[in-house]
């Protein structure tokens, strides 16, 4: 339709419809990021006190201090491990749910979202009673005589990754499930008819066609894990902190808002870059499709 024949009201309508979302985005996202950016150029005076003068000292501190680089790298590493483990664990589950002929498939999908009914913090705390020295695993193994002293599982990097997998796995399964569910079953039948074994049909047809969903799941898990703060705080020792914890300590412990803002922006830029790379090759619409179930 030619834009020139649209009335002024027609041209305004999309903006009016978009206005609530745009205002919300501006107030809840753009504005805070803008404020953080301004703070990142303020001078830290003492705990809780900053001077409103322009300085690049906070950015220089970040760029020259290996402490921050180490934790940024560690966050990338732990998030990547978490995302990959989520993929390895989540793909078979998603495949089973998508391919099952079970009449009440909705029950399986419902089970996926049941954990979301319980507070994330409470679910994370529950791991203390599972992994702790007097937790379910150690007590069982001790009673069975399989170990003579409790295994050190809690307050380790492994516990942090476990906690994050527990939180992120449903996101991975949902993304992969949506991708597999969208595959035309006739393609699998055709592959089998043309002589493929079940395994070959999976590797030649199902896996390539579900890759966008898998990649969307990997992106989501990586981004959410990298921004995680609560799980390392509860299940890890201080050495198992991630970049989010460094930001928290800088803002809440040292009361150094300028540096905290700088570090927050660094994480934002990093995760934005990952999302941009994904978007360049896969398109972000996949992520939203997966999130929408």
């Amino acid at each position: 339709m030619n834009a020139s024949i649209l009335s002024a009201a027609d041209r305004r309508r999309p903006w009016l419809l978009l206005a609530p979302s745009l205002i919300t985005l501006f107030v809840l996202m753009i504005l805070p990021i803008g404020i953080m950016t301004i703070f990142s150029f303020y001078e830290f005076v003492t705990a809780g006190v900053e001077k409103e003068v322009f300085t690049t000292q906070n950015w220089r501190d970040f760029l020259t201090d290996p402490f921050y680089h180490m934790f940024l790298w560690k966050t990338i590493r732990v998030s990547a491990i978490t995302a990959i483990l989520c993929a390895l664990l989540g793909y078979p589950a998603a495949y089973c749910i998508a391919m099952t002929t079970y009449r009440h498939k909705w029950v399986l999908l419902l089970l996926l979202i049941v954990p979301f009914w319980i507070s994330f913090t409470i679910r994370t705390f529950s791991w203390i009673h599972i992994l702790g020295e007097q937790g379910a695993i150690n007590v069982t193994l001790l009673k069975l005589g399989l170990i003579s002293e409790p295994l050190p599982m809690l307050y380790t990097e492994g516990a942090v990754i476990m906690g994050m997998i527990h939180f992120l796995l449903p996101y991975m399964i949902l993304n992969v499930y949506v991708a597999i569910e969208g595959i035309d079953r006739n393609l699998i039948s055709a592959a089998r008819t043309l002589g493929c074994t079940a395994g070959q049909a999976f590797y030649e047809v199902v896996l390539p066609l579900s890759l966008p969903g898998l990649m969307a799941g990997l992106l989501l898990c990586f981004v959410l894990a990298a921004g995680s703060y609560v799980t390392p705080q509860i299940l890890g020792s201080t050495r198992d902190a991630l970049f989010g914890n460094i930001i928290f300590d800088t803002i809440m412990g040292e009361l150094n808002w300028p540096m905290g803002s700088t570090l927050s922006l660094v994480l934002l830029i990093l995760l934005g870059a990952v999302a941009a790379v994904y978007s360049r090759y896969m398109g972000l619409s996949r992520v939203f499709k997966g999130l929408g179930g």
Partner: protein
Amino acid sequence: MKLTTTKRLERLTERYMNGGLDRRAFLGLAAAAGATAGLSMRWMPQALAAATEVRFDGWGGVVQEAIDKYAFQPYTAKTGNKVTQGTFGDESEIITKVKTATPGEFQIIHSSGVEYYKRYVDGGFNSEINEANIPNMKFVMQSMIDPFLKITPKLSAVPYDYGTTGIAYNTTVISEAEAKEKGAALLFDPKYKGKIGGYGDMTTRVWYAALATGQNPNDIKDIDAVWAKVRENRDLVKKYWSSGAELMDLLAKGEIVVTDAWSGRVAALQQQGSPIGYLDPAGSYAWMEDMLILKGSPMAECEELVNFMLDPATAIAVAEGQNYPPSLDPNKVKLTEKIAKLPAFDPTGTMASLTFADPNYWASNLDAWTKQWDRISKGG
């Protein structure tokens, strides 16, 4: 406390100007108070009093439960004034909230002593208390008031209780004799590697590392030696706890067998029957807590509440409940036997036997040491 109409209007205006009251509420209450000048009805004082609400933020857990049960609930029953409560696990957390809030949103803080008092003052969050409105301050130990007066000649806080951060140990693993012999060195004993805990707070870590290196925590000469000791402790620690509830949980579940610990929380564990011993080694870290009234608060109402909390009957009941001795001077108020047996209790009222952090010394090193501790705690 009976208020005249003029006084009531003055206070309403003050609250409104301080941002503690919105315009509609202010106009409504001002109209009601003004009307009493010509028309006084029996229901009006109650209606005006019902509008009063004070916000309190504390450490949560058994400590705040005791304050609520023995101070706030009786106060509300007596005056009709409500006390809204919030909690925090770390005082920096509440300072951050205060910094981002409008004046008057947060009103009374159960603050952790003089070092933090200085932080509030540096941030410009302190108020000026009218001591005439808190007559029960006459019962408070002068030795607890003086450190605050050194920072601000006009008080913004009233000392309320005190305690120590000593050594707690599991008596089924560590004998009393061993604990007494090793004292603070238990925190650095490789024998208990992976079973040691500690408060994840810079002051506590530096304090005990200073003691372990034979230095005076209020005059550290070799800070590098202290950081080396902090690292040594870090490599032995299973978990640095961040709240009293977490401390109690770690000790009760046997996840750790020795840690520095808040005396009152250990007393609570002992009362619950947990096999936990406690000792204050030489130079043990003593601290005092205060009821801090923030700038922008409804001062008269806050002062009235603090005065109620300092009433000997209330303060004693709270002290017994939270297991921390009250700020009441034992020479002026007869304290109970239970309080006399609490860890850190000073029967002289001089606090001479306890070692507190020098607020000026610690404040001057606060930023640099907090940053360094944050790094060391994370493996730096």
